[in-house]
């Protein structure tokens, strides 16, 4: 399989602003081209759009607005992991030889229809994500004897890290008491335990090895990809305190990269709710089952930004179609030592975990420099 790298990226700030999806998409793509004026748009073979928005023909629209006439142009939707799924599609186009350079742009509005999976009638009247998150929280806390105060550290840590990220939705920092005193949504979930939907976009440009060599002396490569979908419906999850799709996708990605989890220096993981972060870290093998909060508390106390340096979904906000791409951009910046006050200690290998619908589907990428 031929190598695929990431040649350029652009992003928009994540906000609560009300803009048309086409304008939001254009913002990050334009940022990418402004920062990389040497890129010849004629060389872009494909434009892939990641979004849950209902607007049509978005790839040809972005292509026209950006002055690109690609061979391949279409959208990809898979709820919250649309972004990394689009990157996987771009990787496949390049590694198969169908394309040499692919633009992936993800965008969402604060009122995205992707926030609720209407099809999942097994959830009865409890279709909003706060209900599966409450069930996960209750189950995880009971199984491993974890308190609400302990779980609140996830939100405290990720808001702290987001405060160093100029594009994050949240600029505030919070204490455990703030999280505990935030609005009670259910017995097992507070408002500050939740990521918030928002408006934003992120774009990256992937390229073949030949093109990468022409454009950059410090390339970032996608060396591992793992994906798994166990179901669409939340109630089909066999465990309510771990994530089966994440375990399988994580292992596949590490196998492909010929790495083990101890070699991952920095990671962005899909903390849609506080409880997700320890569950993900355990399911990816960063720590043993039940020890995720010990790892998170230690990272927070030592000011180590290894997990979710950009602030995670809780701190950054969650524009569904842009999230996986934004996570990937953070890992690129980390590997290139460009993450400024969020920079971790000279990382060489990074991981992105992006999931959908109560972890019924997960995508994991490994990036290396």
């Amino acid at each position, binding site marked *: 399989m031929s190598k695929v790298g990431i040649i350029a990226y652009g992003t928009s700030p994540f906000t609560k602003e009300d803009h048309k999806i086409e304008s939001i998409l254009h913002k990050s793509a334009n940022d990418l081209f402004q920062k990389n004026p040497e890129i010849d748009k004629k060389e872009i073979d494909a434009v892939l759009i990641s979004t849950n928005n209902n607007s049509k023909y978005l790839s040809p629209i972005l292509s026209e607005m950006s002055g690109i006439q690609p061979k391949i142009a279409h959208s990809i939707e898979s709820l919250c992991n649309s972004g990394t799924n689009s990157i996987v599609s771009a990787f496949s186009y390049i590694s198969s030889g169908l394309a040499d350079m692919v633009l992936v742009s993800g965008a969402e509005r604060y009122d995205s229809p992707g926030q609720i999976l209407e099809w999942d009638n*097994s*959830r009865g009247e*409890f279709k909003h994500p706060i209900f599966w998150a*409450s069930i996960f*929280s*209750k189950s995880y806390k009971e199984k491993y004897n974890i308190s609400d105060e302990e779980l609140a550290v996830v939100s405290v840590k990720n808001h702290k890290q987001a405060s160093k990220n100029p594009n994050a939705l949240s600029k505030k920092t919070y204490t455990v008491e703030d999280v505990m005193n935030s609005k009670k*949504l259910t*017995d097992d979930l507070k408002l500050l335990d939740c990521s918030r939907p928002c408006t934003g976009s992120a774009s990256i440009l992937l390229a073949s090895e030949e093109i990468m060599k022409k454009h950059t002396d410090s390339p970032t490569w996608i060396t591992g990809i793992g994906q798994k979908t166990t179901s669409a419906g939340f109630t089909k999850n066999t465990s*309510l305190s771990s994530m089966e799709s994440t375990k399988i996708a994580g292992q596949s990605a590490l196998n492909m990269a010929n790495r083990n989890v101890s070699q991952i220096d920095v990671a962005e993981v899909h903390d849609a709710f506080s409880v997700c972060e320890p569950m993900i870290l355990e399911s990816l093998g960063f720590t043993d089952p039940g020890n995720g909060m010990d790892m998170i508390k230690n990272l927070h106390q030592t000011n180590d930004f290894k997990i979710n340096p950009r602030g995670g979904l809780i701190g950054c906000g969650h524009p569904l179609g842009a999230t996986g791409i934004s996570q990937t951009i953070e890992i690129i910046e980390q590997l290139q030592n460009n993450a400024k006050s969020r920079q971790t200690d000279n990382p060489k290998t990074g991981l992105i975990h992006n999931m959908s619908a109560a972890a019924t589907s997960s995508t994991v990428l490994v990036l290396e420099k």
Partner: protein
Amino acid sequence: MSFEKELEKGRFYIPQCEACKKLVWPPSEFCDNCNEKTSLKKEEFKGKIIEFSRQNEEYFCVVEFGDSVRIMAKMMTQPKKDQVVKISKCGINEGSYYFQII
């Protein structure tokens, strides 16, 4: 789908494969195991509470019927894990199913 016609009348009948007898969930005309047709198993199913939480005064529970059918249902009294329950009320409201258990 006949499942939804019965649900609209307040009856919770789970589809079962006519060939392999598997209970099929989410409700479907075809079996996800052997692809044969399904028909409704018309009985009063008993389920078991797997997990629950609460919003305001209402509990919401994950309930398992047989070994493969799980739903989320409302309960007005304090649930217990592994408690055996049955559907007391169900239907369709603006396209969404709803289930209540006792």
